């Protein structure tokens, strides 16, 4: 009934199977190699200190010579989680600002592909970390996950502002000293002018006029 010449079809079937087999093998090996390389990439950020602190607090082992661990109170865990969220916000800001620049550089060819891969991996890890923090927050206090990042954002912005303000206020003392010295020197110049006999050189007049002006301003 089926007048199919099976023997004639052996060769084409072999060809197709070999073709498909090699394609599939190549694809799977390539993907495995890429995954391994991506796992071996150098990390983008230095080790996450706040995360380590939080997890160490969570898993503190009993010390030598004691039977039970001193239970770490929840308030400390919450503070540690807030610090972790703060550092995450800081890193996310860095990633977002670097993203545009990195993609432009990549298009121009100034940086290699491995840098871009490291960056993408860092981005992915960051998203996982954020999800993790939200889950931990919800575990520590009901519904905290929704606003923990808002609070952390405000804290981060506030601490940057505070450091800037402190820098500015620190300039107060040196500026005061400078101004006192300047006033003293202007005063002494003025006194010298009064002492020397009045000669009509243009220089002295100019200096007197200027020191007069500054003296007047200082007295105001």
């Amino acid at each position: 009934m089926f007048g199919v010449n099976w023997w004639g079809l052996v060769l084409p079937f072999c060809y197709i199977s070999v073709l498909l087999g090699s394609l599939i093998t190549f694809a799977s090996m390539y993907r495995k190699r890429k995954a391994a390389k991506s796992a071996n990439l150098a990390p983008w950020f230095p080790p996450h200190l706040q995360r380590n602190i939080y997890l160490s607090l969570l898993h503190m082992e009993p010390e030598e010579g004691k039977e039970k661990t001193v239970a770490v109170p929840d308030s400390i865990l919450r503070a540690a989680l807030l610090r972790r969220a703060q550092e995450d916000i800081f890193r996310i800001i860095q990633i977002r600002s670097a993203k545009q620049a990195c993609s432009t550089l990549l298009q121009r060819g100034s940086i290699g592909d491995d840098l871009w891969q490291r960056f993408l991996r860092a981005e992915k890890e960051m998203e996982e970390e954020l999800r993790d923090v939200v889950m931990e927050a919800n575990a520590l206090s009901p519904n905290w996950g929704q606003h923990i990042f808002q609070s952390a954002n405000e804290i981060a912005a506030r601490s940057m502002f505070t450091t800037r303000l402190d820098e500015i206020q620190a300039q107060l003392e040196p500026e005061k000293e400078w101004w006192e010295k300047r006033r003293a020197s202007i005063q002494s110049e003025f006194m010298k002018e009064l002492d020397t006999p009045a000669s009509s050189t243009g220089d002295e007049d100019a200096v007197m006029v200027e020191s007069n002006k500054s003296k007047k301003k200082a007295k105001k």
Partner: protein
Amino acid sequence: MEDSETFTQLPICMDPTSKAITTSSSSRALQEELAALNNLHKSLLQLESPVPPPPIPVNQKRSANITKLRESGNAEFRKGKHAEAIKLYALGLQMALGRPHWEPSGLVRDEVAGLYANRAQAHMAMSNWVEGLVDAEASVEAKKVGNAKAWWRKGRCLMEMGRLEEAKEWVGRGLEMEGNEADLVGLLKDIEEKEKKA
């Protein structure tokens, strides 16, 4: 960043009485971080709720007090009692900066900008050019756009102290931010005239 499944166990322990976290390692970064953590913990303990509330609904009491202090400072300034005004402004600044860190930083910036600008004005009225300078700069740092008063005041202090180059550069920056504001343009002209005379 390391693998998300692992973490590094750090050598930290908790002091059972004071609930402060200490470490036996000598790493400076770790010690600074733990100090920050302990401070945050102390400020969290003062809250009634277990966690910092979301920033948006703000408790109005502190804002009302700060506004009252600013108004009374303004009143003293108008009466001519500059030292009193400075004291009131300083008290207001203490309150504004003492706000807990999780309250909206934008609100803090606005309050602080206004208070610093007014204190700078009071210092200038007493000819304390240095204090006025520092306060005006702090006000600009808090609010760069829409704060023409503070830009003008620092420019004026610099001019009065004879630092004309710096004053010109500062007022130039202010004009970039404020876009040809009349007072700033006038101040720039004054500085240039003084430079020609000197």
